[in-house]
């Protein structure tokens, strides 16, 4: 049974499922974040309060953490196996025709994970009481952060890398689940491109307005 659970295809299957779940989470997070553009802090704070107290969301939160951890741990494990599979590298760079985004998933993913840790320090740990701050006023916490130029630059770079990651991840998850179709796969690829551009632009737009336009 262990052989099956830890086979290359099973590991990829789990990675794809966890990844797809994370893909559904991002638009929800973005929808709430867009409330930061409202001059009234009330709607955003109410939404943040709802997300941290509603029982169903609490369950989803646990699933989300499990999905992130599985995606990260399995991702690293798979990558280490991949490196071991070619102990001596080619001297001439591989010029096979592939999507450039697909080649750097471990690096784009790793950058996103580092950003996630920073994100936890800035928000989630306030909620847990580990870091000082007002958990009932995340609106002002976010607004203050978005006024720090260095934070915004890190934020934008991370979202560009997230876009690169999502571009390949979206299509790749379907392929790993065995869903490849003459008509639908090209549609999925277009959806992947739209998603990978729209989500990061949506997130990056918020500090742009707060820092530059206001």
């Amino acid at each position: 049974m262990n052989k099956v659970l830890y086979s290359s295809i099973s590991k990829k299957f789990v990675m794809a499922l966890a990844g797809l779940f994370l893909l559904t989470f991002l638009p929800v997070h973005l929808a709430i974040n867009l409330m930061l553009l409202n001059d009234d802090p009330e709607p955003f704070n109410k939404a943040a309060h709802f997300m941290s107290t509603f029982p169903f969301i609490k369950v989803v939160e646990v699933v989300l953490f499990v999905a992130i951890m599985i995606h990260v741990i399995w991702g690293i494990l798979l990558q280490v196996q991949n490196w071991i599979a070619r102990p001596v590298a080619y001297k001439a760079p591989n010029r096979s025709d592939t999507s450039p985004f697909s080649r750097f998933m471990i690096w784009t993913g790793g950058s996103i994970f580092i950003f996630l840790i920073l994100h936890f320090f800035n928000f989630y740990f306030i909620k847990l009481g580990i870091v000082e701050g007002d958990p009932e006023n995340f609106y002002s916490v976010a607004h203050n952060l978005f006024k720090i130029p260095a934070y915004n630059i890190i934020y934008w770079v991370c979202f560009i890398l997230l876009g690169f990651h999502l571009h390949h991840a979206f299509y790749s998850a379907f392929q790993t689940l065995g869903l490849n179709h003459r008509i639908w796969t090209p549609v999925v690829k277009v959806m992947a491109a739209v998603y990978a551009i729209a989500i990061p632009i949506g997130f990056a737009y918020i500090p742009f307005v707060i820092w530059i336009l206001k």
Partner: protein
Amino acid sequence: MKVRLKIWRQKNSKSKGAFATYDFDGVSPEMSFLEMLDALNTKLVQEGREPVAFDHDCREGICGSCGMYINGYPHSPVPGITTCHLSMRYFNDGDTITVEPWRAKTFPVIKDLMVDRSAFDKIQVAGGFISVNTGAAPDSNSIPCRKKHADEAFDSASCIGCGACVAACKNASAMLFLSAKISQLALLPQGRIEAKERVREMVSVMDELGFGNCSNTGACEAQCPKGIKLTNIARLNREYYKAF
């Protein structure tokens, strides 16, 4: 024409290996790449030097024996052909051509550009067959089969097991090879009977041998001389999930 060849020379699997540079004059554009290497070897032998070892057999693009990594491309910079089908007219006078063996833990270098691809045989032996007595030749069309499936099975069966997919993949994964071997049988009624055991065993052996995991980059498809498609890998994944 004159070319500068940077060829990987390695005495055996234990030694380290390094590039040797050969300025080779008098190459005809009509020569195939392998004929050019033959000519180089003749010259090296005449000079009392060790010829370059490389794999080759049919030189018709169907045996899967030849294969080397040329200027960053497994087999050839020209898509859809094996090394033996690569013509020297593709290159220009004065070009530098870098030639390496295929590199993967599962494909150890035997000598120079020759690699041991018996790992593929081990995967095949694990289940790439139908275990019934063949008996006399059956009447054609006695077992009904959809035309679409027969065509797809035929396309999958055109895999020559050359290993370019492993060579091209950044993870040295054998998923395209295995998916072709699984598909050619899974698509036909005769192959369905043992489909579950086959995919379980073949995937298990592939993992044990130490091939990398599939990242769906598509490098394998881009470099496959027989045009084996990534749809095969999706089918392999489906077959694997169905086997439990």
